[in-house]
């Protein structure tokens, strides 16, 4: 029987940097606010709604709600492309789709999607996904982080507005 995707792991934590919660698939968004994978799916929805349903179902089944410490879903659901870049493999009738994604803590960032017509993922598709992930990381690092606001006894005098 295949392992449950929601199985709780009793593995020891690898350190304080381990993400908490469950994995969540999100679309990569470029600087102009465009989400290329979602745009592809919306285009496809007009002509092939069943294929889009299959792709969304595969994302739900294989990428969402997993323990981030668990190994990636096994082949043939997903496979490694290069390094941390992976592909979600979806076949609908006679057409094959590939969603390239990469994990960032508990987020699975959907970087690129295409119809696969050849034996291997082309270098151009791979580079496109890699470039988007580089941009994702750079912009995430550029977002200033605020420390959580102190509350309760740690709050500075007057913080609760008297």
């Amino acid at each position, binding site marked *: 029987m295949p392992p449950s995707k929601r199985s709780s792991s009793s593995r020891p934590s690898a350190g304080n940097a381990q993400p908490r919660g469950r994995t969540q698939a*999100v679309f990569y968004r470029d600087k102009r606010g465009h989400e290329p994978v979602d745009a592809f799916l919306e285009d496809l929805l007009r002509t092939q709604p069943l294929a889009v349903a299959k792709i969304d179902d595969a994302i739900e089944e294989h990428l969402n709600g997993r323990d981030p410490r668990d190994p990636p879903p096994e082949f043939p659901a997903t496979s490694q492309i290069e390094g941390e870049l992976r592909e979600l493999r979806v076949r609908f009738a006679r057409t094959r789709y590939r969603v390239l994604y990469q994990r960032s803590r508990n987020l699975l960032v959907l970087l690129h999607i295409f119809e696969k017509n050849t034996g291997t993922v082309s270098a151009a598709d791979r580079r496109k996904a890699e470039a988007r992930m580089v941009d994702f990381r750079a912009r995430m690092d550029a977002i200033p982080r605020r420390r959580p606001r102190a509350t309760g006894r740690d709050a500075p005098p007057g913080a609760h507005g008297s």
Partner: protein
Amino acid sequence: MASVLHSPIGKSAAKAAKARADRNVAYRDARAEYERIRALREASPVAAHLRERRFELGLTQEEVAKAAGTSHSAISRLEKGTHIPQLPTLQRIAAVLDEELLVCFQRTVDGEVEHEFAAVA
């Protein structure tokens, strides 16, 4: 004019899928069918595979039954996971679905599992 800064984290795939289901009936029905197929896979992977394949090729159970030379009720029972037909019938059904039926022999040698696939014909 100041440009709008967008977070690189777009919307969640689950939220986008829900929005699609809210406005596209064919999509919504297909999601429901895939959910049923997923549940069926736990009980009968063969039934789930055949039902999924027929659904995606846009064939009815009657069409598959007629082309495979079997009865509608046999296909219906097969897709419910309550009946597995004999290999020659299964082979004809697979052919209608544009697939080939293989059987897999599995053995364990020195603790290592080995598989060997063979065509039925």
